[in-house]
């Protein structure tokens, strides 16, 4: 493999890694990631077929809510190298892609943990109303995700040994990776708590508990919950005596000319 190819692999896998967290341009989907990898490695036809095959397997890999899917980015880049440079069959490439996708998920957990630090650095920057710093922090967090894919991919490209990468990943203590994954499921409560403290009106908190209980028992889509919440909000406002008074006074004013002096003062 030429130096140019290795550089191109590093650049493309960085784009793939960024794409996998952004989930905007879809460069992390096997269909695109494998095809371009195939171009770089000089066997576009094989890359294309691998991409198509892997894409069909990964159709259901999606990020829903705050949950994360198996990592199609690392799986695509590494399996393409193995098939084209390592001379493996497409079937073998798929077989290796699946455990790599799981390993990539572990690395994503690390990346999303590291970016918590970026969030807090941004809070510091906000103390000085430093717009530039906040923007830079936001966009530089993308490098964490880019390197997450490009470093292992380039290592595989240079040594063509997925076993080595897998061994490296396995060397991470299971307690730490498993623990971070577990914590990743609930660390967001700090975020919830912050926003709730900002929103919280004590006498309206029952609606929070109502949402919690209904959310736990009803298997409805979030849209349906949105509609329910909206209906509660409308009913609450309509029945609230605080607002009823306003409309009543205006009704009295319009109906009776000889209204009380109090009412006229309000005009």
């Amino acid at each position: 493999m030429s130096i140019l190819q290795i550089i191109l692999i590093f650049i493309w896998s960085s784009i793939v890694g960024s794409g996998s967290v952004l989930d905007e341009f879809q460069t992390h989907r096997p269909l695109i990631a494998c095809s371009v990898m195939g171009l770089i490695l000089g066997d576009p036809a094989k890359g294309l077929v691998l991409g198509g095959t892997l894409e069909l397997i990964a159709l259901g890999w999606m990020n829903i809510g705050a949950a994360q899917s198996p990592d199609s980015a690392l799986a695509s880049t590494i399996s393409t190298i193995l098939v084209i440079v390592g001379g493996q069959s497409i079937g073998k490439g798929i077989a290796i892609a699946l455990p790599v996708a799981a390993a990539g998920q572990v690395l994503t957990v690390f990346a999303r943990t590291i970016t918590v630090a970026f969030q807090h650095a941004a809070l510091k920057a906000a103390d000085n109303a430093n717009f530039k710093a906040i923007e830079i922090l936001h966009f530089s967090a993308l490098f964490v995700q880019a390197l997450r894919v490009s470093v292992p991919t380039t290592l595989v490209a240079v040594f063509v040994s997925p076993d080595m990468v897998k061994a490296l990943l396995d060397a991470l203590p299971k307690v730490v990776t498993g623990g971070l994954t577990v914590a990743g499921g609930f660390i967001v409560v700090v975020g919830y708590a912050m926003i709730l403290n900002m929103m919280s009106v004590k006498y309206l908190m029952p609606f929070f508990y109502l949402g919690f209980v209904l959310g736990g028992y009803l298997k409805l889509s979030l849209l349906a919950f949105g509609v329910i919440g909206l209906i509660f909000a409308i009913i609450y406002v309509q029945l609230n005596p605080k607002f009823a008074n306003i409309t009543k006074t205006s009704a009295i004013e319009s109906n009776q000319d000889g209204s009380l002096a109090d009412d006229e003062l309000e005009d």
Partner: protein
Amino acid sequence: MENKKDTKLTKKDIFQTFIFENFQQASFNFETIHGLAFCVDMIPTIRRVYKTKEERIKALKRHLTFFNVTPAFCGPIVGITMALEKGRSDGEKIDEGTIQSLKVGLMGPLAGVGDPLMWGTLRPILAALGASLALQGSWFGPLIFFLAFNGVRLSLKWYGLQLGLNRGLALVKDISGNLLPKLTEGASVLGLFIMGVLVTKWTTINIPLVVSSTTTAGKTTTTTFQQILDQLCPGLPALGLTLLMMYFLKKKINPIILIFALFGLGIIGYGLGILK
């Protein structure tokens, strides 16, 4: 004091917001998900409508909070928030709580539409079409997938942003003394309700600790702590942790300490086999 005209959002501000919106998940983090991203989305607006440092600091911090929605569907929320900030800077009585509540109230339902539509429908259809073409060796496969998906996504972002902004500005304009308290109160009800739903739906805590294990007629029935909790009410640990965090934050405990404590809890709990 600067001229009041300067606080009008320009085309350039809106376009810059649109560009930023395409990097909605760049700083995806476990604590606030898109929190930092939303703040960046609001920077062009904050820079335009607020002229004093204190106001800018407050506005930035207001938007460095938890936010999460299907990326393609963030436009309407960003747009309406821009309009609310503009209204607030013009002296309308729109308080922080109303802005937060509307954000939360919109993000839940929009994610509810966006996730199944983008990830469950549009992408699988386009990807399956692209993949079948690719398997026949055609480069139209990846090309069609890339262009079609991004075409839909970009229009959703652009028109969503315009829609949110225009509707929001009309809303702020129409706010008479009578409507505003209603909006504030109604938004809080909706926002708190959705937040309650999200606490139980978007948090994952599993406690597979075996409490009892009974063997009857050769069948072993184990009861885990999680099952007992689920029988009481699903999602109780998530609610408990959220309330605990609210309490600690009110006691002015640094959120960084709370984050580390929770990561520690995850690792220790996983190590002891209490959490999974």
